[in-house]
């Protein structure tokens, strides 16, 4: 293997991995903290992407502002969803939660199909994101570099906001045993809503950031679901850093197969996942139950 090939694999792999990570980090958070298997996560990402694609056009605002508005809107939708529907499901078993969110995914798919049509919608990026950066032996699209940076920033922020504050503790307490959590003075309602909205907003951010690679279309939500779940599971259910490294591992494996035996790239992705989960059922960084 030549050095150029190796570094190409690394560069493309890491770039792909960061996009995977950006899209999964919100899911990783809701699953890790709330332990809700939110199969509609992709739907929030999709909604974010579609809104980001349309808002700047329709409202004539700058693209970056459109992105912010899109993320805020997704947060609002998530809030409504959490308050009206999801909250009824915290005490139900995983399966019901999964099914509920599948239901939401169906509805979202139908809605997006209706509002935006069934074809690919491209998310226009701010000028800053366009163009490529020359690395000498090859070039790399600038937006991938930005997404990488974004990913790192998000890890740090979340690490401070969740792992390092008592917020994470209270969310996990609320999820472990809501009645008892309330009985020791935790306002579970607020905690749930805040966490879920945060997860959804991150999903939207991920959807927008990754739209170049995972293009926006109505089946987006279900199409990439398996990949999202794979990253979260391999990372260790809901562990931030776990997701980060899982995305790196899976991204690099798939990318290197693309350079070598592209036909088997998907197979390699799933094989890696099986091997990791068999060796470490709790995922790379997961805590033992």
């Amino acid at each position, binding site marked *: 293997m030549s050095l150029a090939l190796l570094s190409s694999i690394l560069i493309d792999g890491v770039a792909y991995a960061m996009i995977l990570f950006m899209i999964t980090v919100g899911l990783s958070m809701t*699953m890790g903290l709330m332990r809700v*298997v939110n199969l509609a996560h992709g739907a929030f990402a999709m909604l974010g992407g579609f809104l980001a694609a349309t808002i700047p056009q329709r409202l004539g605002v700058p693209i970056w502002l459109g992105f912010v508005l899109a993320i805020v809107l997704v947060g609002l939708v998530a809030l409504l969803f959490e308050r009206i*529907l999801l909250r*009824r*499901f915290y005490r*139900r078993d*995983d*399966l*019901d939660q*999964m*099914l*509920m969110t*599948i*239901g*939401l*995914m*169906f*509805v*979202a*798919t*139908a*809605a997006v*199909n*209706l509002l935006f049509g069934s074809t690919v919608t491209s998310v226009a990026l701010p000028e800053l994101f366009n163009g490529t950066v020359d690395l000498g032996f090859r070039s790399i699209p600038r937006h991938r570099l930005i997404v990488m940076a974004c990913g790192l920033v998000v890890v740090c922020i979340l690490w401070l906001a969740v792992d390092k504050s008592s917020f994470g503790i209270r969310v996990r307490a609320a999820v472990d045993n809501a009645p008892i959590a309330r009985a020791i003075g935790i306002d579970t309602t607020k905690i749930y809503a805040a966490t879920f909205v945060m997860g959804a907003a991150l999903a939207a951010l991920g959807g927008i950031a990754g739209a170049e690679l995972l293009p926006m279309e109505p089946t987006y939500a*279900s199409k990439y*679901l*398996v990949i999202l*779940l*794979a990253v*979260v*599971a*391999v990372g260790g*259910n809901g562990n931030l850093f776990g997701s980060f490294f899982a995305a790196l591992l899976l991204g690099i494996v798939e990318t290197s197969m693309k350079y070598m035996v592209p*036909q*088997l790239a*998907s*197979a390699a992705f*799933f*094989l890696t*996942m*099986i091997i990791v*989960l*068999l060796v470490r*059922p*709790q*995922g790379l960084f997961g805590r033992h*139950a």
Partner: protein
Amino acid sequence: MNAVSAPMTVTAPSRVRPWMQLRGELVLMLVGLLAFVLFPQDLGLLTNMATMSIFALSLSLVLGQAGIATLGQAALYGSGAYVAGWTALYLTADPIVGLLLGGLGGGVIALLSGAVMLRSTKLTLVMLTIAVAQLLLELANWARWLTGGDDGLAGFNIGPLLGIWEFNFLSYTGYFYALGALVLVYFLLRNLVESPFGLTARAIRQDPGRVQALGGRVYLHLLAVYTVGGIVAGLAGALTAQTSKVANLFMLDFTTSAGVVVMIVLGGTRRLSGAVLGTVAYMTIHHIASTLNPYHWLFFIGSMLIVVLIVLPEGLIGLVDRTVAYTKRPGRSGVAR
């Protein structure tokens, strides 16, 4: 108020008459015949309902009873379909042989994959089942010469059932073949669920560690359940392949697995009859909704799923139970005060 005075031998066998014991099977058979009489022109749909019901039953056993979390049941279903297709192509056109070999195929895949997966639980298990199904799909796509790749495996012929009844495009034979298989599978699975085997499976779902402390071999038990589930899913796949004369990659797809989960949850996971009910309801709604307004049928099914989960946590079968309970005690309101 809590001093429930119960008879001394609470566990005495209930003396029910045989037809009461076979109630589920009889109802199923009658409904099947009635459907045939009422909708003779929709036999294609009805046949699919029967085969999908069998598929749903396999999942109901695995997930509803034993609590094996899976989103990869399609792996077993698809395997059955391909085996049935190969049987017809290379071995014999006899449908029964193909059906049984299909079941065997599903069972073998379940046994092999279960052997590696079933020590895991929860999300890990879900992901493993998904991954195994995806891997099989990639494999089948890669082995085009054997499976026809994404075009599907077709061009096989199915001989007459028992050498007498031809499968023709009116699909009378196909329908009764599928219905018969459904009733038989339902009967066998119901007995399985009510047996010690089934009781232990339910206990494992609730607390595997406790069963282990009672000397149970949880892993083996789950493997047995999963294998039986694989056989049943394989049968369903084989039936589908035989009646539609195509086996294809989509039968191994994640969407297929997820779809059947939706069906059993809609019907109710805790009871086998829920699986059949859910399948029939889902497919009927799909059929009607997509005829009325194909563009938006996902809206229907998505919102219906949510509503059912909220209003009827036990699934549609819960509605049936409540109705039965209500009619059985006239003059009494549902809630004792």
